[in-house]
């Protein structure tokens, strides 16, 4: 398997993308912005289709990723400007999303080889990444991870308790915009692995699973990264020996893990809830 260069590139890019998706995905889940993340990928779709159509000759194989980045970051800035606060963004996101998706459809229809191009953007093309794209992914990963390291605590606090963060004089609008851009760039690269339509499998499901397993953000982020890494590696490995697509295996693995953890979590919290209730009554009696 390792003798094939395309498999090496797939593993290299897939590993980096799993890490950034696992990290930024945690903030997506914490801020209840899953819909926004999905919207970014579809805005990226319009961008990618537009870039392939209008600048395909100029940009070559990099046209889709350049278009993805342009589409999703423009969308991110537009949403950050339209809806100042994190809550109730759904309507604005939906409005921008519907328009860009329609635009994407037009671009892809105008492109001669539209079926193959559309398919790879919609469902991923990790087995087709070149060394240039691997290097580009590396640059993006370094940028994303260093940005997260810098804004980590303010972003975490603003995501948990926006009102108090605002009163403390923290730059809520700036942090919201940084978050949007982080998600936009992460989504643009994650689309290479999972495609536009399956973006949740790396940007949302691993982090949502991790949230059940850890009550401290740092641990949850580590678990989230571990899950997306595991899914990407196993997905690539299994896909190599079968005829089925990588994206399918990744979505199946993260979904199975989510179901398993959710079930276990429910069983343990039910057990814990009843014991806590008894303990709580004891405490109350002492206070009274």
């Amino acid at each position: 398997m390792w003798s094939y260069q395309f498999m090496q590139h797939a593993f290299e890019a897939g590993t980096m993308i799993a890490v950034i998706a696992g990290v930024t995905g945690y903030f997506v889940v914490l801020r209840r912005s899953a819909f926004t993340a999905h919207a970014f990928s579809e805005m990226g779709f319009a961008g990618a289709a537009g870039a392939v159509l209008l600048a395909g000759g100029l940009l070559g194989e990099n046209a889709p990723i350049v278009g993805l980045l342009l589409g999703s970051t423009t969308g991110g800035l537009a949403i950050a400007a339209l809806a100042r606060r994190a809550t109730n963004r759904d309507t604005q996101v939906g409005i921008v999303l519907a328009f860009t998706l329609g635009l994407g459809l037009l671009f892809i229809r105008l492109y001669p080889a539209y079926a193959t191009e559309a398919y790879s953007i919609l469902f991923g093309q990790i087995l087709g990444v070149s060394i240039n794209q691997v290097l580009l992914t590396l640059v993006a990963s370094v940028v994303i991870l260093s940005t997260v390291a810098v804004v980590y605590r303010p972003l975490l606090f603003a995501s948990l308790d926006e009102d108090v963060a605002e009163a403390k004089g923290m730059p809520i609008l700036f942090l919201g915009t940084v978050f949007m851009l982080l998600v936009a760039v992460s989504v643009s690269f994650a689309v290479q692995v999972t495609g536009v339509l399956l973006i949740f499998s790396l940007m949302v499901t691993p982090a949502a699973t991790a949230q059940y397993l850890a009550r401290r953000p740092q641990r949850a982020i580590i678990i989230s990264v571990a899950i997306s890494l595991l899914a990407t590696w196993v997905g690539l490995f299994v896909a190599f020996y079968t005829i089925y697509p990588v994206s399918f295996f990744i979505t199946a693995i993260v979904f199975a893990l989510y179901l398993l953890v959710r079930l276990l979590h429910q069983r343990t919290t039910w057990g814990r809830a009843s014991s806590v209730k008894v303990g709580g009554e004891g405490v109350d009696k002492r206070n009274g």
Partner: protein
Amino acid sequence: MSLTVHGLRPAGVESDFITAENLTAGYRDKIVWRDANFTFGRGELVVVIGPNAAGKTTLFRIMLGLQQPIGGTIKIFGAPPRRGNPKIGYVPQRHVIDSETNIEALELVRLALSGRQWGFNPFSHNDRDAALAALEAVDAMDVAHRPLGVLSGGELQRIFLAEALVSNPEILLLDEPLSNLDMRRETDLLHLVDDVVRSRGITALLIAHNINPLLPHLDKVVYVASGKVATGKPSEVLTSESLTALYGIQVEVLRDPHGNVAIIGLEEHHGDV
């Protein structure tokens, strides 16, 4: 020289934490209330009451520097309010935390201290010790490691109080901490706030719907209704004469033998007796 500088400090500064003169709040096209005058000193527990949408939270927003007054002056420690004043702790009015939020309470309190710091230091534990001390102070150690999403209303209010106390503020602004609490939890939380405020010399303003459970604890009352603000000791402010004089319409303040108060004439809903 330094002795002279100390001597020059006006006597009022240390005792007057918050002063307002003819303070008027509102927006360009609408005045919410006008001409509020008050002075709050160290360690005072002040209760802000009044009907819904009378502008109680507006008063807090002005003190926090989140909203500019449209008239008059307000000074906090001798200076105009500014956003992010570390001497003010704030507990906003809020709805229940999402039950899916599986982050432990301790983390929220830690972030209230270290959340303003840029950069990433996974090995720093200063904020952890301070957060544990704050949780201890509000008697919430038993829920320190439980997820925010599963805490009860009373437990959450303790956590929010710890979140506000962790940076050692000198002023505490509590926006309706008693809503959604049953009577016993209300009493518990009031005793806790009273203890914390007295023992630390904090000046606390607390917005509430019903003043009666608070009467044994409070030093001053701020009554916000119909565009005006009355401030002072409850025995001076909450009388038929003073409210009638302030509002220019007939206002009745009824008291029952237990000292409970009901204000008739300015609010549609009272029934506090």
